[in-house]
């Protein structure tokens, strides 16, 4: 699927995707970006609701407030590219694959889930996508995928999402060194949401996030924004740089998690969280849409998600 205004197939693995959630081919980018963020937001809010109703088992980590990161990065990916995500992976997975039913069934523990109910919320696998729940460990795995692409002579890059908390893990730095030394086509996306579970990054992190990458010779693309268009613009530059085969790059996105870490575990100051809701990425970008178009998208997303939840529950 080649999209109209960026030339890339923003959803290479969308064989199970519903156009009401991911957009039909040719949908203008502004609408597509909004639709996908809205899809991820409402999917996760629905999940939290299903938990409340006792219909889901286990745990989950929502990315409410960070949807723009996933959607913008995927906007710049090709079918050859690989994406590795972490515990907070629903947004990344849905942006990459559009497979809402597969994820919903997976989190419900059903055999029809993308990993047969074995992986659950944090351990997902689809074409061009994997996630795992151990902090830092996925970074060398993504570097290995990048090395495979280099050896294959593929044009693809390997993208790995980490959080500010992951900067505490030593294997991350082992990998930055190795990836830079071998000039691997690796893109490290650091989503700094300011809180590592219950601990602010100010209590976890000495020195500078940016300098951690520049110390190993990575070019850093840094942005403090929840605006999907701004993140898309910087992602475009970063991915273009990575595709020159000049070595790994880092994208540092300063964002904010508007929800709890997993479930019912939020001790952050209420006024801090409330202030950040003013930077809700869906509102920021939603204001760019004509209100009738926006409302129509909301209705489509809602009806598609309801269909998916009903189907998943009936499996």
């Amino acid at each position, binding site marked *: 699927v080649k999209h109209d205004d960026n030339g890339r197939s923003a959803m290479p693995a969308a064989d199970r995707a519903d156009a009401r959630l991911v957009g039909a081919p040719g949908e203008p980018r502004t609408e597509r970006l909004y639709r996908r963020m809205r899809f991820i937001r409402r999917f996760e809010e629905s999940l939290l609701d299903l938990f409340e109703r006792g219909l889901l088992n286990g745990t989950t980590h929502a990315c409410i407030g960070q949807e723009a990161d996933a959607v913008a990065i995927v906007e710049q990916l090709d079918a050859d590219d690989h994406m590795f995500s972490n515990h907070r992976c629903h947004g990344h997975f849905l942006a990459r694959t559009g497979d809402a039913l597969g994820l919903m069934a997976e989190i419900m523990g059903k055999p029809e889930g993308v*990993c*047969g109910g*074995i*992986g659950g919320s944090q*351990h*997902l*696998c*689809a074409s061009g996508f*994997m996630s*795992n729940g*151990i902090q830092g*460990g*996925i*970074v*060398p*795995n*993504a*570097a*290995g*995928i*990048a*090395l*495979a*692409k280099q*050896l*294959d002579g593929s044009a693809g890059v*390997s993208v790995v999402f980490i959080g500010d908390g992951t900067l505490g893990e*030593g*294997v991350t730095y*082992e*990998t930055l*060194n*190795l990836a830079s*030394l071998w000039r691997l086509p690796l893109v490290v996306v650091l989503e700094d949401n300011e809180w590592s579970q219950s601990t602010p990054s100010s209590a976890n992190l000495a020195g500078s996030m940016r300098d951690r990458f520049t110390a190993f010779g990575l070019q850093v693309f840094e942005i403090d924004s929840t605006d999907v268009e701004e993140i898309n613009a910087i992602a475009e530059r970063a991915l273009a740089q990575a595709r020159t085969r000049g070595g790994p790059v880092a994208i540092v996105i300063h964002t904010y998690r508007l929800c709890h870490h997993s479930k019912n575990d939020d001790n952050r100051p209420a006024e801090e969280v409330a202030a950040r809701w003013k930077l809700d990425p869906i509102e920021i970008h939603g204001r760019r849409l004509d209100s009738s178009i926006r409302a129509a998208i909301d209705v489509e997303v809602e009806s598609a998600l309801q269909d998916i939840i009903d189907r998943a529950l009936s499996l």
Partner: protein
Amino acid sequence: VIAARAIGDALRGALEEDDRVILVGEDLVDPYGGAFKVTRGLSTDFPGRVRSTPVSEGAIVGLCAGLALSGYRPIAEIMFGDFLTLCFDQIVNHIAKYEAMYNGKVTCPVIIRTPSGGGRGYGPTHSQSLEKHFFGVPHLRVVASSLVHDPAAVLRALLAQDRPVLLIEHKLLYPLHLMLPAGGRLEGDIAELQVSAGGLPTVSIRPVPRQDCWFTVLAYGYQAELARRVLSRLAVEEEIFGELVVPSQISPLDWEPIDASVGVTRSLLVIEEGVEGFTWGSEVAAQISSRFFGELRRPVATAASDPTVIPSSKTLEAGMLMTSERVEQAIRKVAV
């Protein structure tokens, strides 16, 4: 041919036969050719496919996982088995999990080779046999090199399947000559080679027919060689006849050759160099006792090194590791 050379030749064969094979590890590249010289010459002949890495064991093994997930057949060398602790997360929470966790959508066939064991005076952090910490990890194969197994055949079998593998090579075996069974014999002994469904060999060695053996000894790696020498001498000098069973895959075990021997001798000793407590021998004892309860002539015996650090001093090291003398003592206890 000595084991180090045979293993190097096996790796060379794998590189020749399959373009997807990549060797990764510290100091592998010529002229050094690896800390134990196993890979000497390979980087010259396979440039780009034999790669020296920074001192980053977690990243080495994690990188191999990504290669394997992408269809390559990476073989990592971890310079000393003691450093496996630095790869534990990658092996247990990544490599061994991916295939099952993703419901079979991918495979992650990483092979991790590592020189292990004591006897060289390298002290507490360069002498250990840490493999017991990996026994029983679901979906992981732990395989041990022994002189009676052909490294090329073992490596071919491992590359023909998709499970991740931890391959333990005792460093005292490297300068010793392979002793492969041929025509059902090994030197003066009867030698039986049984190959599991996965293509991995178990070799059973006995000086006399099995029904005339009084006991079975189960061992792998360097301990198998120590046991072979002791058993050979006891047979010639004292008419003490025991059968030695040497599996190549040590976790999970192929029980058939072990059960076949124990079913006849009804007595078993398990020897390992790792320190005692929650050992390979404990698991074998539990399984054999369960299957052969009432048939065994004595409780399953186990022998392992003392549960302490491995001293650098040669004398102190010999005082706590499983040496030839301790192997003999353990055998004599069951040979009555």
